């Protein structure tokens, strides 16, 4: 089972905090990778918060392909950070040759474009780069969005941290939100794109468990939006549904829970809004999930959410103090990063609950 976790902090925190949250949860051979998405960045990216940031793992040829494409499309590179890799014998990591994080200025043609146009351009650019890099295996592009950084790697999470210098808490790499996952992949054909958190147009999501309605979800999502591609992991479905409900349909956030885990008909009958909920269930029946899952999401405006499947078959806990709130699979992670918090206030969301953490760290609990 994947262990997932996220931290929302008043002040920017380094990735080591996420590692400290995740590593105590590691069990057995639960060590096939580490991935994280950072949002609301500080550190070296502070001056470029408005500039879309490309997160890339590639070889030299891939780097060239990306540069050529971005030049051709009129993107102007304004900043680049290439982390120094501390590779040494004995580290369990399958590192790519280069990790590139670049901020770009929008092409001149987008000067007067509205927000939606710009967001669509960023998506189409990422999809195009992915296509170009995938063709000959020259690299992976994980996100291209302002103020969002993604890192994914295969190997032992602690070794990945060593290699990337993630234990180094100098103020180089910081953010107010981190969503991360230490991965236990039951399928040995490990694909980097299959590692969550997944990112799409401002929405970040990681999930654990098995999406038993993967085929249904996937077949339906394929024709919903051009960005719903890949499907390397059955957890991508949760992201695409989140994106579809909130960004495409523009429904309030609580309806995400209604879509993925609709109320049973006996409960629906008692509701005043049964007509609306019934219509949603009818129209989006193929986006229902019906296996054991917990979802952690991060929204474009910084809200962090969590909810689980309709039978609460996968655990999740939310805990916090004045400075930060964390959501994670197992409480030992919380105990490590916030040993002095009031654990009696920890929340173990139930099967009909959604927890939303606002930017001011206010925690809302909402019952479906």
């Amino acid at each position: 089972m994947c262990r997932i976790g996220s931290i929302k902090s008043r002040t920017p925190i380094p990735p080591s905090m996420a590692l400290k949250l995740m590593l105590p949860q590691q069990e057995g051979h639960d060590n096939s990778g580490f991935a994280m998405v950072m949002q609301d960045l500080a550190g070296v990216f502070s001056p470029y918060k408005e500039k879309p940031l490309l997160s890339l793992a590639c070889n030299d040829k891939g780097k060239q392909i990306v540069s050529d494409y971005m030049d051709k499309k009129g993107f102007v590179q304004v900043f680049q950070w290439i982390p120094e890799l501390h590779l040494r014998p004995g580290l369990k990591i399958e590192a790519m040759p280069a990790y590139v994080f670049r901020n770009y200025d929008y092409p001149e043609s987008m000067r007067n474009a509205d927000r939606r146009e710009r967001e669509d351009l960023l998506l189409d650019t990422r999809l195009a780069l992915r296509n170009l890099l995938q063709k000959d295996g020259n690299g992976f592009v994980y996100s291209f969005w302002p103020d969002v950084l993604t890192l994914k790697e295969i190997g032992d999470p602690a070794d990945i941290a060593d290699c990337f210098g993630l234990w180094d808490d100098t103020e180089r790499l910081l953010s107010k939100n981190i969503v991360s996952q230490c991965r236990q992949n039951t399928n040995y054909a490990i694909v980097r794109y299959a590692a969550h958190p997944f990112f799409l147009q401002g929405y970040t999501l990681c999930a654990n468990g098995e999406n038993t309605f993967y085929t249904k979800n996937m077949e339906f999502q394929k024709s919903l939006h051009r960005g719903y591609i890949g499907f390397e992991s059955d957890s991508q479905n949760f992201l695409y549904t989140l994106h579809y409900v909130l960004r495409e349909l523009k429904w309030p956030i609580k309806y995400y829970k209604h879509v993925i885990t609709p109320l049973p008909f006996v409960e629906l009958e008692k509701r005043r809004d049964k007509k609306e909920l019934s219509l949603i269930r009818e129209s989006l029946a193929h986006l229902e999930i019906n296996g054991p899952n917990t979802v952690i999401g991060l929204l474009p405006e910084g809200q962090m959410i969590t909810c689980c499947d309709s039978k609460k078959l996968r655990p999740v806990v939310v805990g916090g103090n004045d400075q930060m709130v964390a959501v994670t699979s197992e409480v030992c992670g919380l105990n490590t990063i916030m040993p002095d918090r009031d654990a009696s206030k920890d929340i173990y969301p139930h099967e009909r609950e959604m927890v939303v953490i606002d930017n001011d760290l206010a925690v809302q609990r909402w019952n479906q």
Partner: protein
Amino acid sequence: MESVRTQDVSSNDLPWKIVYFPERCTMCGSCVAACTFNAIEAVMARRSLTVSRKAFPEPVREHMARPVIQRKAGLRNVCVGCGMCEKICPNAAIAPVRNVDSRFPLLARNEGPIKRGGRTNLNAQRTLDSIIVGRISQMTDPSLDSERHTFDIRSPFGRVLRSRELPFRVEGDNLVLTEKTPPVHWIYPAIFSDMSVGALSTRAWEAVALATAYLNEKHNMPVRMCTGEGGVPIKLLESERLKYVILQIASGHFGWNRIIKTLPRMRTDPAGILIKIGQGAKPGDGGLLPAAKVAPHIQSIRGVPRADLLSPPNHQGLYSIEESVQKMHLSLNAAFGFRVPVAIKCAASATSVSVYNNLLRDPYKICGGFFMDGIQGGTGAANEVSLDHTGHPIVSKLRDCYLAAVAQGLQGEIPLWAGGGIGMTGNAAADAFKMLCLGANGVIMAKIVIQLLGCVGNERGRCNSCSTDKCPTGICTQDPRLVRRLDIDRGAENIVKYMLAFDSELRKLLAPVGNSSLPVGRSDALVSTDRAVADKLGIQYAC
């Protein structure tokens, strides 16, 4: 050497023989009275017998005239193997046995094409039995407990809107409906399919209706029954129980005069309307209720005189799908104030995908379901050539239609209901579950329902005499003496008990794949042990 009239029809030319044990027979005559086909008779016949007439044993072999039961010769009174003689005989003295060397198919055509009821006897292959629910939740995710968990066993019946078309307005944190939407009812994923009053006896029809109401009201199982094309008793039309009934309109429009006239007095809406274009058995052949079955009450309910009642192969006023949607769907929707889902039923065919695609483009959002019936569906009366040689297997055609909708992102918008052989081997729940995984929203069942009432017909040529008005079980006849053979309450009870078992068995299949709601389109839950089936349906091959 004695000459033999080899062209005479004798018992060994016919599909069933009678085994008779005279030493057990008491000549009570029950078997003769019970045989609705008049296939056996009591006669005096010369028999060889060993007797002892003295005060002490002195066996003597004698020839004497004895009363015996024997089958009639000839093609007019053929034994159909229904076994009523065996069922009624108190001494187990008589029973029909299958004659594997029957020449009946050759001889019977002397009288013209062979007509019968039942299912195809030639294409009884079972694709669904080569499919296994093979994706079991093991460690990666937990299986559920079929007894403990709550299962949401409901399917949509009605036109489903695309999420982007839902007329919602955001008010604060809520979505509020701003316009009327097409009616969609969430019902049990098995419909008792269309068998008319006429094809069925009034008692059989009443038993099915009773079972339907009982399942709804006592067991919270919203099963619906479809009337078939034959009208509906006024009493039901004016009853609250009409809400469990899907009214059918087919090409003969039988009974609709009464239905329309009763509209102002209906206390509730029917569960739906089903426009029947065709059926799985004898597709393209229309319908036929032989004059023999058009009893006075049938004349009354259908508003017709005693005559062969032919439903034409086509709806005479329609010539295209678009027109059908515009005219029939729209007018039937309008007749019930756009409150009742209107669906359409077609025979599965090589053209089904085109039909479904066309319906999916229905701009008025008024097609509330596509019912498809495969070659293994049953019928009350048909030419055998049609039953055995026309039609289309349902499984792959259902899958084709579902995948056609998937390719366009339209799956679920017009619910797919499929039938034709569901429960043919007795386990309808397993069949239904596999059909759901392949993309059906639900299944339609008919033959199995009358089998539960006591019908003894099967796919190996037993009985299948629904067309004769001589149904030995009182199910497919209008002969009042025969109809009385059917105990309505026991028949309904059998259906109810079966459906309760069906429901439990469905849970037993949902639980190991870890699902509490119906896995419509979850083809990854299935594997097939037949490579060709796996390839055709796009599921895993397993061996």
